[in-house]
């Protein structure tokens, strides 16, 4: 701006924490010049619930249920991340193959469910109202499956240290097969409504660009990183839970804009579906949890016949198991990116400290960079493309 130009004032717009498209309670302080964003400052902490601290006063099994509430759109991924960390702490390596396979299956379904919420909100933020409702229709199918296995629609807490809480019920396979059959057509439907829509492309192509270098510098992970063209997927680079046995591709973008992130996630849903199908086809028979009475409670019928079982049962439910002193960090590829759990044990039955590496929190750092010099209308598109869950950002 030239020196002699008339003095123009910027306007400070407080967006959130109660605003329809800040995905919860994100507050953004926007400095606007007309409708152009000069500076964006995210303000977080409105959903701080002290979950990490709470975990220190629960035993390891009890703490599993907390992580459902961290990222309430992907509870199973959070269950898995924490459980894997505790298993590493306990040095358990012989998780039954059936449990491993089911874990993969459920976590991939979870990825689809989470991406569906993202797609719906991204669409409604750009004004395509119908897609939002279509996405929730499909998500309902997945949630029904979760309810079937765990009894809860969202707060599943289904994955346990050593395996799973219980085996899958009858009819599970049919429901998943139904989903596998119908879902690809539904994705095609979304793509007709959005991918080929000129207005959609106008609103997303070239918006919120993040180059690969910037993405690395900011530490972003997940579809945002891959949208910028970097091939980094923990499922491939550090396979866990038998991911190495599955065939799938990691979709990559090129430009790192909202559109590429959108395409990445859409294709990721298709890949996840492939994994689900493979898992269902090869699902091995056998137990779903290890047979270690120091960690896993004995089966119910043994309690009537074995004194030892009663003692184990009593010990586990009153006190819990005690991992050896040490600290571990385990990360998995959550729907939003690298979801890491750092667990410190002091040898007692409660974790000494649990620290989550929340992908939403770290990805949110990229927001001011994406918004610089963009229009107000792009702000919502960018927030949605980061796919934040405020429960995870604030914990």
């Amino acid at each position: 701006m030239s020196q002699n130009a008339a003095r123009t004032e910027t306007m400070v717009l407080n967006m959130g924490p109660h605003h329809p498209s800040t995905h919860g309670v994100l507050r953004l302080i926007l400095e606007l010049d007309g409708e152009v964003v000069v500076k964006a400052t995210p303000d977080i902490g409105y959903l701080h619930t002290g979950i990490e601290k709470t975990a220190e006063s629960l035993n390891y099994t009890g703490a599993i249920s907390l992580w459902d509430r961290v990222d309430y759109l992907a509870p199973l991924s959070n269950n898995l991340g924490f459980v894997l960390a505790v298993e590493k702490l306990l040095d358990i390596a012989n998780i039954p193959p059936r449990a491993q396979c089911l874990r993969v299956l459920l976590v991939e379904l979870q990825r689809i469910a989470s991406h569906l919420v993202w797609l719906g909100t991204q669409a409604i933020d750009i004004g395509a109202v119908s897609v939002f409702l279509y996405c929730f229709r499909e998500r309902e199918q997945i949630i029904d499956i979760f309810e079937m296995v765990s009894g809860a629609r969202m707060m599943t807490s289904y994955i346990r240290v050593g395996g799973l809480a219980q085996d899958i019920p009858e009819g599970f396979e049919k429901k998943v097969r139904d989903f596998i059959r119908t879902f690809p057509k539904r994705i095609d439907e979304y793509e007709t409504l959005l991918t080929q829509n000129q207005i959609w492309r106008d609103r997303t192509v070239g918006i919120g660009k993040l180059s690969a270098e910037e993405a690395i510098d900011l530490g972003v992970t997940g579809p945002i990183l891959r949208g910028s063209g970097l091939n980094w997927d923990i499922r491939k680079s550090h396979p866990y839970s038998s991911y190495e046995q599955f065939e799938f591709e990691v979709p990559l973008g090129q430009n790192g804009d909202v559109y590429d992130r959108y395409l990445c996630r859409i294709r990721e849903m298709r890949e996840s579906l492939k994994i689900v199908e493979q898992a269902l086809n090869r699902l091995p028979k056998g137990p779903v949890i290890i047979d270690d009475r120091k960690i896993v409670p004995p089966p119910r019928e043994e309690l009537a016949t074995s004194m030892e079982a009663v003692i184990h049962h009593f010990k586990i439910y009153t006190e819990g198991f005690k991992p050896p002193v040490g600290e571990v960090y385990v990360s998995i590829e959550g729907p939003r990116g690298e979801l890491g759990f750092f667990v410190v044990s002091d040898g007692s039955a409660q974790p000494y400290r649990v620290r989550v590496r929340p992908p939403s929190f770290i990805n949110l750092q990229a927001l001011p960079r994406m918004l610089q010099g963009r229009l107000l209308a792009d702000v919502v598109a960018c927030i949605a493309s980061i796919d934040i869950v405020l429960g995870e950002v604030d914990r």
Partner: protein
Amino acid sequence: MELLSPLVPILIIVIKSGVAIFALVTAFAYAVWIERRVMARMQSRIGPNRAGPFGLLQPLADAVKVLLKEEIIPQDAKVPIYLLAPAVSLVPALLSFAVVPIGPEIEILGQKITLYLADLNVGVLYVFALASVGVYGIVLAGWSSGSKYSFLGALRSSAQMLSYELPLGLSVVGALMLAGTLSLVQLVEAQKNAWFILLQPLGFLIFIVSAVAEVNRAPFDLPEAETELVAGYHTEYTSIKWAFFYMAEYINMIVVSSIAVTLFFGGWQGPFFPPAVWYFLKVAAFIFLFIWLRATLPRLRYDRLMQFGWKILLPLSLVNIIATAAIMVWQG
């Protein structure tokens, strides 16, 4: 009786105005109901179905609800203007319906009654003039609310409506040239042989696109872009004042549909049914189109919208006028 006879024409006009306003308000209520039901079907939902059969009493329930809502006047509001704005928004919308012809003359109790309030010889201009006055409702509401979201919504809408008035006005010029009149009644009569949609397809396309923008409907609903500006210019309005804006939007939609029907689809004309039925059917088809668009398309971005208006629609409408003129001259 002799003494009263000069008052009869006035009485007829008063009654007709009353009926028109009542009909418009009812039409608004059921346009909302249709929108909610149709959108619900398109989005695999059910929609309102509790109040009365098929939820037909839902508009009444909504009206009661809206009336009973708390009146809130924001602290920073500039009060007289803040209260004036909803009326400024609604009144032009109602007034512009005066020239819309629903049918030709009919006879009731020996009195010849026309199915329109006025046959102005500048009917089309009258509608556009009132539409441009309607902008004030939005501008004043946005400014007087004392809220930044409202303000941004007002800025957007005034720019948008000003920009789209131009192609809107120019797009109908072709049809006006063919009919050789500005009167909406005569325009309908001019389409006895061929609807102008056949002669003016480009003009109609430009008209309908600009019309969607002019009445702030999706995908051009930027002034109230929910996800960006909360509710745009009427963010700070509650209760009946808010309902006024809502009414203005839907009545504008009905008026614009009526104008489209009158200018391009032969107005009340059609076989078998009485004229008024044809008029309602055609308008309903347009309302359905508006709803359909809203359920399908994402929202345009502000700068794109302006570019589209100025760089595509405006030149196209000029081309349409020149082409129409050339053909008319060529054909003599």
